[in-house]
């Protein structure tokens, strides 16, 4: 055990720190849940990619740096420290990208990965359906193979950033007689294909952060299938593994929230300390964010030495989503009467982005498998409790 960074790791940190200082936008971009903000974020992805910082864990041939998980964590720490923009293409670069590298043909990799890295193709995920939420194997949208085309019909929903995205990766039932997780196929669909209707759904903040998508005899070439026909479940499960989870929600994000929470508490200590629970909650935020970081580093080190990830990785989602919710709830308590004010409200001076974060934190325990589903997985697969 040696808990210090190597010189090489420190040099890497210094390099990204300097690059971000020179290149990260000075002013925050508009939210990517607006058309203008979406475009700004797409352009930022191109800037990142140009500096070879778009996806540092990708191989050099694909514009990455072949970084290991520790370097990824360092990158994320510097990225969040610099308050660089959120990643508009996270479904693509964090989830689909690694899955393409694992399951895609050479032709598919060449066709999709560079455009994804440059932000030319922004991806949305098409898993949930009106009747298939927590029960994802209940997917009913169909893709019928006719010659060298799939004919897609049905409906997807809760598809994040689909309003302005270019592509969708989704699961469709290709074997009409199949049930549950058999007979599903993973297909990549251009969202501008005739027969597709994207209907924006306003989120808690009123902005169209997700959409429902209707497919009416949509023709997609068979070369857009990822993995084998009927093997979609295994491909989809690969996008949900630990490393993908680490990409999506690395500790740096929550440590920065904890740091800002400590600052907020200190700025408002005279009023905040009247409720002893608040001080306790700030201390807990720090403890949990640090623990999440330590645990992630420990797992990353174990994996980089050839260790295997086990069922304990399913504790991750519950831990960070509840941490995020608790930290923002504490911030709301500290802000008191100002907490409800929108950031641009005249009387809202100093509330910053806490309200946005609070709203967003409500989604954490729901998306990517509800925390109730996660608890079932932990109990059954990690603890071995009976089904």
């Amino acid at each position, binding site marked *: 055990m040696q808990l210090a960074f190597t010189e090489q790791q420190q040099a890497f940190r210094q390099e990204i720190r300097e690059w971000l200082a020179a290149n990260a936008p000075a002013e925050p971009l508009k939210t990517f849940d607006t058309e203008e903000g979406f475009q700004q974020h797409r352009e930022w992805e191109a800037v990142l990619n140009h500096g070879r910082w778009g996806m540092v864990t990708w191989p050099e041939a694909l514009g990455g740096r072949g970084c290991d998980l520790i370097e990824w964590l360092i990158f994320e720490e510097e990225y969040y420290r610099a308050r660089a923009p959120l990643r508009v293409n996270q479904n693509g670069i964090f989830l689909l990208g690694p899955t393409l590298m694992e399951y895609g043909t050479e032709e598919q990799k060449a066709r999709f990965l560079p455009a994804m890295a440059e932000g030319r193709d922004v991806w949305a995920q098409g898993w949930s359906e009106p009747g298939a939420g927590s029960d994802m194997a209940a997917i009913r949208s169909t893709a019928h193979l006719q010659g060298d085309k799939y004919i897609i019909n049905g409906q997807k929903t809760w598809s994040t950033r689909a309003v302005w995205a270019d592509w969708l990766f989704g699961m469709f039932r290709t074997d009409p007689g199949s049930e549950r997780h058999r007979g599903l196929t993973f297909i990549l669909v251009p969202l501008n294909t005739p027969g597709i209707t994207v209907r924006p759904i306003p989120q808690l903040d009123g902005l169209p952060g997700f959409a429902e998508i209707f497919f009416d005899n949509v023709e997609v070439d068979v070369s857009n299938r990822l993995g084998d026909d009927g093997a979609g479940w295994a491909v989809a499960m690969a996008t949900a593994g630990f490393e993908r989870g680490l990409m999506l929600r690395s500790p740096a994000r929550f440590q920065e929230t904890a740091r800002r929470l400590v600052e907020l508490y200190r700025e408002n200590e005279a009023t905040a300390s009247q409720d002893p629970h608040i001080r306790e909650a700030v201390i807990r935020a720090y403890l949990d964010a640090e623990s999440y970081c330590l645990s992630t580093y420990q797992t990353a080190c174990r994996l980089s030495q050839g260790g295997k990830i086990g069922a304990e990785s399913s504790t991750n989602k519950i831990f960070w989503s509840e941490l995020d919710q608790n930290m923002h709830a504490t911030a709301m308590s500290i802000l008191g009467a100002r907490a409800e004010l929108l950031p641009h409200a005249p009387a809202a001076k100093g509330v910053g982005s806490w309200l946005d974060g609070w709203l967003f934190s409500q989604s954490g325990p729901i998306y990517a498998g509800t925390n109730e589903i996660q608890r079932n997985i932990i109990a059954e697969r990690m603890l071995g*409790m009976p089904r």
Partner: protein
Amino acid sequence: MDFTFSEDQLLFQDSVRGFLVNEITPERLRAGWDTDTGRDPALWQQLAEMGLTGLTVPEEHGGLGMDAVDFVLLAQECGYVALPEPLVNHALVAVPLLQDLGGELAAHWLPLAASGEARVIVALEQNLLAEDAHVADLLLLERGGEWFALTQGQFSCEHSESVDPGRRLFTVTVQAGATPVATGAAAAALRAASLNRGALGCAAQALGLAQRMIDLSVQYTAERKQFGKPIGSFQAVKHHMANVAVRLEYAKAPVHRAAFEVAENAAGASLAVAQAKLMACEAANLAAKNSIQVHGAMGYTWEVDLHIFMKKAWALANTWGDAGWHKQQVATAIFADGAALGAGATFQ
């Protein structure tokens, strides 16, 4: 950056776990409650033969020369079986303190500590009572800002019974005329270091205790049937245990990090230990709360073994610094001007 244990460390943990689980059965623990001392010299001898009493003693004094990182996994296993022998205090707290005190005291006692001939115990004033003072061949006692090194006959003990029948706690009275072995700033530094080591020991044992309570609960709820099914198949029961598993999972790395900081005598050791103890004891307390719930009325009995581990977890949470004390350590660190917080600050 290498946040892993070596193959050797993990193999040693496995062999110690195997030994402890075989030897320290709940039946043996219960038998020990009814004896005078509550301690078993034959068991202590077995621990010595495995090299555990001398693990942290330097090689020139007959030990294995290992440190807190080597010991922390073993302390977890001591927790898993609720080991009553004072091994954690001896190896993790007392032996390093003897080394720090140095001189003839260390030269005389370290070889005896290594061989297991002497049980060396540390007692801090902050702990109110001295654990296992009645079986200490050498008691290193901190009182009034000074340290005393006392053998049996140089102090007297009054037993205060704990809810945990496995714990033996004493009020110690020092015979008149004892001379301190450390005073002033040196004594204060030794007190702080010992508190870190003792708290780390509690945290590591709490991890083991929490795991044991999970294991007992998983086993019980798989066997116990209601409404024609094992109660462990009900989501309400599953989620109780999943909640414990989550808190336990994220308490492990802080404990291992604290062991590293302690082994390195790092400036951040107190903060790392405070984090570790808070996270681990909270996980163990939640394990106790949810485990008794899923055991139902059986969990409220003397007969079912759960209480052995539950009571030890409760006790460890409030000794070697209670939660309030350790939270204050964290608060002092994070509310300070210029505190290193946020992304990238963890390993600096």
